[in-house]
């Protein structure tokens, strides 16, 4: 095998790099140059290879991303803190994720607390009140009265709370469904529209029951043209999932319409008395909201950080 290799005709191009770098002996160098004189392709190849070497040599250095100076701590520990352990944008993103998760959980708790207070309308007052109010023509007239009326009181009160959820009409609604608690959190933070806009709409709160994007349907309501003036909440609602909060909200509206502005005007999170005590339905609501918030929080924490 070695013999075969020895007698194999050697491609002169294999010596081109060594020739360029001055690594050939005198005899080899002379032989190579003689070959170039006879073979124009070989000469061109050497030129190309030389150009390649020059291009590599011209590659600029990037600045060091940080100082690599040594410290006494490094010398004593004889171990360098890993670059991965150093504060990095990735770490900041992770912190932001955790903060967002904590915020969502806190918001969900606030919503649940609010909902728990307002659930008196859904539990103790029963659905009959909601049904009554939903079918009541008075409700429609009360809603249509515009800002400053008793019907607007709940929304206005909600808007005055410190919670970000106050910007969401859905959260301002006393009987907001627990199933939408986490969604409302997202919607509330995204919605720049104050609640009075909802009150000015004939069917104000139905859009707010939508998940996540519920913030976007709010502005159309302010203009009014997209909201049907029929008074039929289910048909007028531009968002299909309007059914979740419809009844509780109409209950609140009904409360306003029957001349009790103080009751619906409670702010979210305010200590509203619960007549019935913790019932099974409320427990289920709380558990469901907690699970939903925990799921969102877990997703935020465990997912790969943005931009990573």
């Amino acid at each position, binding site marked *: 095998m070695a013999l075969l290799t020895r007698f194999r005709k050697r491609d002169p191009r294999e010596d081109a790099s060594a020739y360029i770098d001055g690594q050939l002996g005198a005899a080899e160098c002379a032989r190579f140059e003689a070959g170039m004189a006879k073979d124009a392709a070989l000469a061109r190849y050497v030129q190309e290879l030389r*150009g390649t070497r*020059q*291009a590599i040599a*011209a590659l*600029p250095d*990037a600045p060091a991303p940080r100082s*690599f100076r040594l410290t*006494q701590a490094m*010398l004593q520990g004889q171990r360098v803190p890993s*670059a991965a352990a150093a504060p990095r944008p990735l770490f900041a993103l992770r912190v932001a994720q955790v903060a967002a998760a904590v915020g969502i959980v806190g918001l969900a708790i606030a919503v649940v607390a609010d909902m728990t207070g307002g659930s008196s309308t859904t539990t103790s007052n029963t659905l009959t009140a909601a049904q009554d109010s939903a079918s009541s023509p008075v409700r429609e007239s009360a809603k249509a009265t515009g800002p400053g009326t008793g019907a607007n009181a709940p929304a206005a009160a909600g808007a005055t709370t410190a919670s970000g959820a106050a910007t969401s009409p859905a959260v301002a609604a006393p009987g907001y469904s627990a199933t939408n608690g986490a969604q409302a959190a997202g919607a509330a933070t995204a919605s720049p529209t104050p609640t009075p806009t909802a009150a000015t709409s004939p069917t104000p709160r139905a859009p707010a029951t939508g998940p996540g994007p519920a913030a976007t349907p709010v502005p159309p309501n302010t203009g009014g043209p997209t909201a049907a003036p029929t008074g039929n909440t289910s048909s007028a609602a531009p968002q299909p999932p309007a059914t979740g909060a419809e009844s509780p909200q109409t209950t609140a509206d009904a409360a306003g319409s029957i001349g009790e502005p103080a009751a619906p005007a409670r702010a979210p999170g305010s200590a509203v008395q619960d007549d019935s005590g913790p019932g099974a339905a409320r427990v289920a609501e709380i558990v469901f909201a907690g699970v939903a918030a925990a799921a969102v929080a877990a997703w935020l924490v465990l997912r790969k950080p943005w931009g990573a």
Partner: protein
Amino acid sequence: MEPGLEPSDERLVLFAKDGNLDAFNSLVDRYQAAVYNLCARLLGNREAAEDAAQEAFLSAYHALSRFEGGSFRSWLLRIAANESKDELRRRKRKDAVSSLEEIFDRSESPVEVPDHREGADILFERKEFREMLESAVQQLPFEQRQAVLLVDLYEFQYEEVAQMTGASLGTIKSRIHRGRERLRKVLLARPELLAGWRRLEE
């Protein structure tokens, strides 16, 4: 100290050997870009390169007593090349290309912002050419990449690379030639960039 009268490497090494950490850190300041870039090009990963560079300086400090003179830069880069190889063993290579973009995008100096069309074209060609070449270097097998970079970019002799890597001189010759040959093909595939680069070199 008067500006422009920087102490020589030899002088700083002497102080550092006596335990003067500030003197050694002056050497770190002087060579950290070169060390980091060698690590980055060998590893293709910024985070790994940072770790390898830091380890290289730490190893160099502890090995100072064995430094017998000559080029401190070469000695340091040799340590960095070895640390990079160790780091490569420890890590899986992933996201190399994107990391490289991240690494070398920053080498664009702010003063190179073009102010007319022709200048923009030239800068664009130069940047594209450089990125293409950096990417092509990354595609080389580690041994070829190491040999080509150490010889062409860091001006090591074949014998030094052979000693550094424990390979024979013939092996080093072969690695360098094969690596350059691959890069030549890549460059020839984009003759317009190569021509633009040559214009800049003239």
